[in-house]
């Protein structure tokens, strides 16, 4: 009787003006709205032909007469990489020519050693070297022996040119040295340089989903380290600041807002200034807040408070004003006096809208988090983002950013899903209306939905008889 008319699902196309799609399609599209961007990210990350404007070096080489030196892991633009390889090949050609003519180029053992060491990343990637043996030169020379014997490696393969270079170099090393694995017995003749190898990659600011997930998993599972508290502890700290500032703002702002919406006196006295004050951006007060509240969390909570309080007062005042005036008149004809009008009519009457207002303002509070944590002594998740970002460990930054998004989003979704149960008298049903993800994907636990539906009177046998 009062339920919205539902159209049989098979009659509705995908595009119908102001028509709700059937639940299954709604759920599908909601999932797609998350998986779409994720798929796009995967495609850009794992399909090199889409973008990948850079080459990340797996093997590097130094060039004669060029001071800029690269090492494995560095990124070069894709256009420059062939030039880089060519320059190394020119150096190698000169060395080969010197070998044939017998000219002795001036090369020290140290230079040879430095060039030979460029093979270390190959050993590391393939697991032939451990972190500890990475600086051990005889272990490094054993890698050359391995490569000379034709081992190309599994995870990082040596190119054919580099295998030949390895063989040539190893020949020279073994002909002069009694113990080829002793770095002090390296030949003084120049040895060939490994040619640079690389993989096409995206810029450093766009790590692959795999890297992000691995880094996130590692960061969240490792306990507190020398770099500061563990991420879980940081998260709790950040949430303390957001909810602390927000609850403080709500505790003070809601009563003031209701007073403003109820009495013109308070509205005229308070709202103009509040309206003016909210245009002063909260971050502008940061140094001031630090001066007032000193270090630790107090200035941060104060910043979240300043950022939300003034908006909250105005929003709540409008909500209080929005209550149907005829309800107040009806209450007056029933004998309600001033305090009763406020406490028995206005306050209960606006609760559902107030609840929604607070949900929106909690979202505002989250947006102030990062700035709040930057002021004074950096702390919480933001400090982690800052530090890792400065080291260009962006694959460790992304999980934290996404985490903040998730916490805010899910808090809001849970609050939205709870609303019909908190305010049953509004007649809102779970899974009805534009409540977003929680309701369209999950549609609320089925048993709860049923309980509510059966509580309705249009399903009441007595009602149907009438």
């Amino acid at each position: 009787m009062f339920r919205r008319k539902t159209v049989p699902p098979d009659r509705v196309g995908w595009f119908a003006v102001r028509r709700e799609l059937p639940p299954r399609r709604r759920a599908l599209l909601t999932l797609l709205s998350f998986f779409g961007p994720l798929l796009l990210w995967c495609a850009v990350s794992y399909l090199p032909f889409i973008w990948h404007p850079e080459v990340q070096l797996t093997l590097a080489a130094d060039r004669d007469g060029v001071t800029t030196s690269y090492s494995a892991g560095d990124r070069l633009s894709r256009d420059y990489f062939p030039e880089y390889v060519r320059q190394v090949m020119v150096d190698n050609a000169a060395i080969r020519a010197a070998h044939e003519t017998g000219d002795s180029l001036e090369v020290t053992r140290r230079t040879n050693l430095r060039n030979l060491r460029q093979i270390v990343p190959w050993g590391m990637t393939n697991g032939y070297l451990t972190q500890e043996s990475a600086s051990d030169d005889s272990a490094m020379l054993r890698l050359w022996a391995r490569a000379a014997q034709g081992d190309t490696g599994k995870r990082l393969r040596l190119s054919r040119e580099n295998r030949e270079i390895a063989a040539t170099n190893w020949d020279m090393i073994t002909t002069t040295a009694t113990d080829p694995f002793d770095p002090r017995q390296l030949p003084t003749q120049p040895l060939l340089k490994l040619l640079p190898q690389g993989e096409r990659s995206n810029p450093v600011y766009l790590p692959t989903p795999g890297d992000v997930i691995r880094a996130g998993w590692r960061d969240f599972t490792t306990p507190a380290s020398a770099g500061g508290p563990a991420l879980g502890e940081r998260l709790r700290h950040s949430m303390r600041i957001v909810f602390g500032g927000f609850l403080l703002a709500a505790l003070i702002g809601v009563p003031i807002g209701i007073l403003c919406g109820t009495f013109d006196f308070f509205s005229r006295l308070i709202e103009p200034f509040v309206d003016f004050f909210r245009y002063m951006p909260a971050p502008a007060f940061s140094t001031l807040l630090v001066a007032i509240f000193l270090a630790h969390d107090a200035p941060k909570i104060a910043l979240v408070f300043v950022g939300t309080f003034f908006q909250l007062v105005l929003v709540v005042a409008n909500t209080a004003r929005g209550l149907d005036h005829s309800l107040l008149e009806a209450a007056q004809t029933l004998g309600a006096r001033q305090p009763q009008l406020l406490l028995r009519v206005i306050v209960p009457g606006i609760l559902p809208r107030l609840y929604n207002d607070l949900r929106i303002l909690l979202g505002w509070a989250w947006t102030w988090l990062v700035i709040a944590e930057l002021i004074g002594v950096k702390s919480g998740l933001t400090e982690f983002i800052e530090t890792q970002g400065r080291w260009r460990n962006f694959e460790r930054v992304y999980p934290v950013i996404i985490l903040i998004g998730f916490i805010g989003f899910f808090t809001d979704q849970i609050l939205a899903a709870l609303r019909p149960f908190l305010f049953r008298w509004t007649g809102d049903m779970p899974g009805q209306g534009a409540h977003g993800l929680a309701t369209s994907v999950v549609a609320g636990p089925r048993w709860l939905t049923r309980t509510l539906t059966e509580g309705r009177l249009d399903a009441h046998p007595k009602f149907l008889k009438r």
Partner: protein
Amino acid sequence: MPDPTFSLPDYRRQSPEVAARFARLKERPVKLEVRTLGKTFASPQGQIEALRDVNFRIYRREIMGLTGASGCGKSTLMRVLAGLEYPTSGEVLLEGQPVRGPGPDRGMVFQSYTLFPWLTVKKNVLFGLEMSGRSGPVAESEARQWIDLVGLSAFENAYPHQLSGGMKQRVAIARALANQPKILFMDEPFGALDAQSRASMQRHLLEIWKHVDLTILLITHDLDEAVYLADRILVLDPNPGRIRELIEVPVPRPRAADQCFSPPFLAAKCHLESLIHPPGEPHGPNLNLVRMTPHDDNPE
């Protein structure tokens, strides 16, 4: 020319029983007296006089209808009587005491129900009692009686959004009655209902009126409703709102639905019709119409 078989009696002609009833009615105590009431609003366009020199009396257990063209000040008058607006001149006496501000001694039922949506039916009815400091089992059982009176006992724990329009209006009536007001103001109470619910609500209201000490002032646009329910009908003229006529309805009580076609009923209704829609302009205001059909194609 009207069909001679349908010629109606004068609406002022009353059968002996009806005349005797009105004589008795006017001997009852006066519930509400309105004396030289005037109301002027200030607006950006200047002063607007909404009511001028309104005088009338309502006797105990009378149902008085209040009707007139739209914008004639019916609602303003009722809001002044209820104390939601203050009169610019004149005074309103309720049982001899001047009215100042809204109060529980004058119940009001609005067209838009105005139930508190966050309260169940029972809590809505209890609201007035709680406002006068009464709660607990005694007040609750009293509220139940009023809910029972309007026939909604099965729904006392329902929320307003679960009820139909007619049911909501019955709750509103029960809520107003629970305060046992000296007079009940009803501002087009059934205007938002469909025809069937409206008819049943009218019968229901008469039943309640018979069983409860109730004096009613009822605004209505529906002339049938006015004649069917009211003892006397106050007709207002617009701009400024003033009393055109106070009609004594010549239909005997108890009223029944089949009286709608009795000569006194029709006579009263025709007279009301002529007061509210004067016969001078049969087609309403002049419309700027262009003929879009051939001249010989006349649907009449």
